[in-house]
């Protein structure tokens, strides 16, 4: 996190705010609720308390304006600058301006008012822009469906105002660090020749042309997928990636989630109702066989016959000796399976049924 230079802060922890005018893009009640929720995010993590005023001068004045609105930063029409806010202080201090030339929404469409308000209020309270892409205080607009303070935001606000007086201290999500040796993955899949690693709300992506690992929100590609996916695999013959969470799965082609999804894993693949979620999945392009790993067993599905092969499930430890009995994530490259469990990675040769190497979990990231 980054504090505003000079570390300005409010002396009082009880602050007032007023919404001076409303955008015509949304009902007033929706704007009121968006602001209330945005303030709540920051009050939950700090000793700050906010009261809404309906008239008069408040500490934080909120308005929707366009173009040159007589401060030092004129807005620039649709796109570009979405909003700005002033650091704690009297008069203009703390005030938040939203560019009325934007379309403000309360859903995933550009631009979600609650998301932008939550960011701007961080400035009103004394925070600058964070370099953590998972933080609310990251300067670029990213909307991943949920709006929450990351641990970085919490650390920032508590560095200024101290911790929350609530007995239970808030804990925010951490952004994965690709070169952290303790990194673990939720799922991994190949995708049109690249490898995509999934963790919480994020993907990490590498390809041979661009050696630096790219970290960003899964929602950047697929805004309709949930966070915390548990398994994924590429059905290359159909140019589909399938993502699993609980007993549901989604199929995507490129950046499009296919119609009719999510579907039920029991109905589509033939899992018994007792299978509540998939740990990991991988498909062999040559044979059209897909392996699903569930607890200490695995199932094999035939992509051509579209049915589960008979004789399954089998024990992982028996047919994949050396990788343990649980799999977090798996993908296939150049004829080898790469299994991940915790912070370990196993390179496995399916022909000889042998582990060829035990690798660091982030060996693909050029750390």
């Amino acid at each position, binding site marked *: 996190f980054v504090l*505003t*230079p*000079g570390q300005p802060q409010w002396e009082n922890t009880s602050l007032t705010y007023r919404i001076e005018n409303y955008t015509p893009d949304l009902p007033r009640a929706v704007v009121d609720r968006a602001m209330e929720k945005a303030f709540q995010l920051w009050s939950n993590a700090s000793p700050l308390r906010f009261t809404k005023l309906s008239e008069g001068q408040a500490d934080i004045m909120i308005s929707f304006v366009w173009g040159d609105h007589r401060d030092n*930063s004129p*807005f620039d029409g649709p*796109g*570009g*600058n*979405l*909003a*700005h*806010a002033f650091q704690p202080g009297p008069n203009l201090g703390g005030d938040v301006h939203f*560019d009325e030339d934007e379309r403000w929404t309360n859903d995933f469409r*550009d*631009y979600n008012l609650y998301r*932008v308000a939550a*960011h*701007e209020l961080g*400035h009103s309270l004394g925070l*600058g*822009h964070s*370099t953590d*892409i998972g933080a609310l205080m990251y*300067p*670029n*607009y990213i909307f991943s469906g949920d709006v929450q303070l990351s641990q970085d935001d919490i650390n920032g606000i508590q560095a200024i105002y101290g911790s929350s007086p609530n007995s239970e201290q808030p804990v925010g999500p951490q952004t994965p660090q690709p070169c952290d040796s303790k990194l673990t993955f939720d799922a991994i899949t190949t995708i049109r020749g690249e490898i995509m690693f999934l963790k919480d709300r994020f993907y990490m992506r590498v390809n041979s042309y661009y050696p*630096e690992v790219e*970290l960003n929100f899964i929602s950047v590609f697929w805004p309709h997928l949930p966070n915390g996916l548990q398994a994924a695999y590429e059905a290359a013959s159909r140019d589909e990636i399938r993502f699993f969470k609980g007993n549901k799965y989604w199929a995507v082609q490129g950046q499009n989630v296919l119609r009719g999804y999510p579907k039920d894993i029991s109905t589509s693949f033939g899992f018994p109702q007792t299978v509540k979620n998939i740990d990991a999945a991988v498909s062999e392009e040559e044979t059209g066989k897909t392996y699903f790993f569930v607890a200490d067993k695995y199932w094999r599905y035939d992509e051509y016959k579209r049915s589960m092969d008979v004789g399954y499930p089998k024990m992982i430890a028996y047919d994949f000796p050396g990788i343990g009995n649980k799999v977090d994530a798996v993908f296939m490259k150049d004829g080898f399976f790469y299994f991940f469990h915790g912070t370990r990675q196993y390179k496995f040769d399916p022909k000889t049924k042998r582990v060829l190497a035990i690798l660091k979990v982030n060996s693909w990231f050029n750390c």
Partner: protein
Amino acid sequence: FPTPPETPEQDVETVQKYLENYYNLKTDGDQIAKQKNKSPVVEKLKQMQEFFGLKVTGKPDADTLKVMKQPRCGVPDVAR
């Protein structure tokens, strides 16, 4: 095939405006020290690239331009 210019005119303007808005790039010629290989634009570009976790080249490459064109908060990334 003719090679397209590395940085089309429009992109130069994007870079200039972006650095002025968010990285306090001063356009007043008198204030800019003209040192070889250490132009303020290059320095500010490097600062921006480091902030966003991009490859620090000091050049407005495709990834840098991509980030610059994303919608964002109007508050500068460095102190004004």
